[in-house]
């Protein structure tokens, strides 16, 4: 066991740990069951010194709870689980990622000495390549297949530009906070999320990584899937077909007509119908008609053009994604 290999350091009890004496609180506020629970919980907080291997304790000696560079949250993350030998933490502690850094241990930079050999932030941060190599030495599994040469790799992004290793909860892995990280660079998509018709990203019901793999994806725009349409079908499988009467652009690429991040027009369409339809359908009579305000309601009922009001073209051609009805070649069935 690790504890057997390294003599635990002895840390005296902290005389003033700043915590409330919960037993007194119990006597005073017995009226509330919830507070009682909290009291009992608080009373369990121990002020005992933490026993840890020397090579880790030596770092924590300075990087303690009051450190300007807090690291203790790391102990709540998978990286610090010493029973998982893959982490390197058991054997090497902080040096597993930051390098041996002996000079830093003797005299840290703040005291006029040296910084750690591999710093992940600050003015003395190592190069992106160096930092990413540390991460990739463990995280080079199949999910990172596309990382080398991916768009983010080419943009010289470091893993820690998005991920927080010394955090109980990495915001990049938390659906509630992930989007903030993405849109800090992808400003256009951030604006599109606020358009009147958008996928529920702003509401937190859909996340960037539901479709995209920021570590490099198999499909265009780093999609998880090999093609755009496969990605769309994962939620909209009813539009997959194949149908008897296909609509060619639909079969080709959903984004020919739809803007997935948000649109000014209903159904996330790239442009307003019926004019969008008329960019591909220009045959005799109604498809080629010049549609304008002349088709809006007049003073009398009924009035107006069925190519303009309601769902315009879709007042009749309802199956724009394809029809499987034998009498539906015009996408009306």
């Amino acid at each position, binding site marked *: 066991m690790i504890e057997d290999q390294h003599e635990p350091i002895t840390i005296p009890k902290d005389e003033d740990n700043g915590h409330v004496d919960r037993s007194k609180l119990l006597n005073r506020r017995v009226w509330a069951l919830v507070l009682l629970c909290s009291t009992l919980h608080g009373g369990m907080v121990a002020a005992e010194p933490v026993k840890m291997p020397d090579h880790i304790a*030596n770092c924590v000696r300075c990087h303690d709870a009051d450190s300007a560079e807090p690291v203790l949250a790391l102990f709540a993350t998978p990286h610090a689980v010493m029973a998982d030998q893959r982490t390197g933490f058991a054997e090497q502690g902080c040096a597993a990622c930051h390098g041996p850094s002996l000079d830093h241990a003797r005299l840290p930079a703040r005291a006029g000495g040296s910084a750690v050999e591999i710093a992940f932030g600050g003015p003395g941060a190592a190069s992106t390549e160096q930092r990413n190599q540390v991460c990739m030495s463990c995280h*080079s599994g199949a999910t990172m*297949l596309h990382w080398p*040469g991916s768009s983010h790799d080419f943009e010289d992004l470091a893993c820690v530009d998005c991920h927080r290793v010394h955090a109980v909860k990495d915001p990049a892995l938390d659906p509630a906070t992930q989007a903030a990280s993405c849109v800090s660079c992808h400003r256009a998509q951030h604006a599109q999320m606020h358009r009147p018709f958008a996928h529920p990203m702003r509401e937190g019901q859909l996340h960037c990584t539901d479709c995209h793999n920021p570590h490099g994806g198999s499909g265009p725009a780093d999609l998880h899937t090999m093609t755009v349409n496969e990605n769309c079908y994962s939620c909209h*499988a009813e539009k997959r077909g194949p149908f008897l009467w296909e609509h060619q652009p639909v079969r080709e690429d959903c984004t020919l007509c739809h803007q997935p991040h948000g649109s000014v027009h209903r159904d996330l369409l790239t442009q307003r119908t019926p004019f969008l339809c008329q960019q591909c359908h220009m045959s005799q009579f109604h498809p080629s008609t010049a549609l304008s305000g002349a088709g809006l309601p007049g003073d009398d009922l009924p009035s107006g053009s069925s190519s303009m009001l*309601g769902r315009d073209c879709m007042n009749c051609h309802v199956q724009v994604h394809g029809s499987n009805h034998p009498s539906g070649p015009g996408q009306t069935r």
Partner: protein
Amino acid sequence: MWVFRSMVAIALLGSLTISHAAVTEGQLQKLATPKNHVEIGLGHVSEASARFGRYNALYDDGFFAILGLSYLQRPRFDADSPAFFDISIADAGLGNRRMDLRGGRQGDYFFRAGYRERSVRWGDGLQTIFNPQAGANLQLPGDWVPAQTTADMTALLPSLHEFNLRQDRRHASVGGRKHFAERWSVSADFRQEDRDGQRTMAGMFGNTGGNPRAAFLPVPIDYRTRQIDVGVNYADRDRQLRFGYHGSLFSNNEPSLTFANPYSTITGWAAGSGFPQGTGQLALPPDNQFHQISAGGGWNFSPSMRGLAELAVGRMTQNEDFLPLTANPILAESIIQGLPANSLNGRIDTTALNLRLTGRASRTFQWNASYRLDDRDNRTPSRQFVYIGGDSQLQDAGETSSRRRYNLPYDYRNQRLRLDGTWRLPDRTRLTAAIQRQRVNRSFTARARTDENLAELRLSRVVNEWLQAGLSGQWADRTGSTYDGAIGFLAGHDPAFTDTLAGQWANLPALRQFHLADRRRHRLGVNAVVTPHEHWSIGLEAADMQDDYRTDLDTLIGRAESSIRTWSTNISWNPNHNWSAHGFYTWERLTGDQAGLSFRGGPNRLPDIANPERAWMVDHRDRVDTAGLGFQRRWLDDRLTLATDLVYARARARLNVATGPALTSAPLPDVNSRLRSLMLRGSYRINEPLTLHLRYWNERFSSNDWALDDVPVDQLANVILPGQASPDYNVHVISAAINYRF
């Protein structure tokens, strides 16, 4: 070497250790313990609004419960067992409730299970003459008074029922991963999603030539999608392999929708098509499946070169039984040529391939060479169908009938070859360049082949400590094989019919469909990040993309050009742990010009297309402004936190229509929407485990749309509309919740 140095360091670090305090159990527990909590509270929504609640499940007014739980049991860093368990429950009191459960032994295996509901509202207060609860067989009221147009439907307004557009998704999933033999792992995931609800589509009678009649229907949603993913992965220092299977099975419990015809028989319809015998039928999404197997691998050939290959082979199938040519038994008697098959036997074989070589020629130069193939071989049989138009025609199986149609199984092949290079230049400057060649082959379309060449250049530089700037440009040119707009039309009709048609085309020959047309694209972008002070960061970004479809002189009809211009700025201020603020503003202008020509059929057909006075133009001018402001302030050693977020988004879609002298037109009003959202959040930590959360949220949305507003169900003569209005709301939400940490 690294390991050796580390071990030496570890020994030395041990010798450096001194014996006085560093961290107590209490501190470690406080800082390194997941914030497990239970949240209980109550909220109130001031008014019901489908749009406000379309994705957050707050569509009804009144009170709602706030229930949540987050519990993560991680092993202590020095625990003997790396077992972990994680459960989270969120929005349990709403229609968006979700629960996720994970557990396992770190480095060995994990499992997960999840359940979530997503209740979506697209609209409320829609109207229909059919009973919305009737399911897939919609009948008219007993006292229905039919007519040839809505003007004479005296029972229309008294017969209206209200219905809502909604979809409730219930999604359950289980899965896990197991590591074995040190470098291998196997994973499996199964997901099932049930969807039910109601949408609306028009049920139409008639065919062409001015005789269609339609009524909007409540359409049931009753879908189930099952997805399974199984993977086997291998990874070592230099190689990664993965093999996978993906299956997706979609089923629809309501494969069709039958509806009665509310219109009387009109000229051009066969006897018995109209009320009371008239019956129509829509095909709803058919059951379908997709199966895909994949294999991929990455290999570091050397420290400076890596290869990647990934292949996925799949098959989409669909073989739902065909509905009859008509649901009307009277019209069915006219059928001479029945269906050529009982079902489609639809099948598309997909092949996707990614190949990539990545190298570092030096410390300052990295390159990529990649090839991508996306091939969809549509093996669906093409057969001739003699269709019956809109459940209102007798079958016309004549030799020259336009109703003899062939289904077109579209093939598609997209190949892309791309070279990327990035150079680290002196003075913290970075140059990235790319060239790309893309070829797309299609069948039965106006252009069998399109080719696009693309070049990109990006330059970024860290000018000094407070300024980082970048410049980017893109140029692309798309051309292709000869454009023949009649190909699909000719392939889809019987030659005996097309021989009778002047010119043998349907779409105007001068039309260039925008995804097939020649196109030149230019894009320019600039960006900068200014950090005038360590507490301040200001981002600036502007981009201009222009698409020009007029590269071919014959391209007179269709999309002529389009552009997207944006500029945005964002600013953040983080002076210390207690204060933070941010703001952003984005201006977007999307434009597009399209040209058309109005022409009639019969003897007017050819003269009309030669008449420039029948030409028309539409200019699309969309503008979007989005702005936001937020701040957060902490007091009392983080016990009290106040935060606010303000978002303002305004969108305007403007259409300018101009027509030649032979046509008439009138201006169209703008379509506008405006969103104002204010969120105030406060939290006060009563004591260590208890925190009170208060929230006030006001969202105001106003919009107008000339296609919906003041357009009642009987506005159009030939379509019974759903009477849907564009949304407008002003909703206040207040909530209070107690969060108990444990």
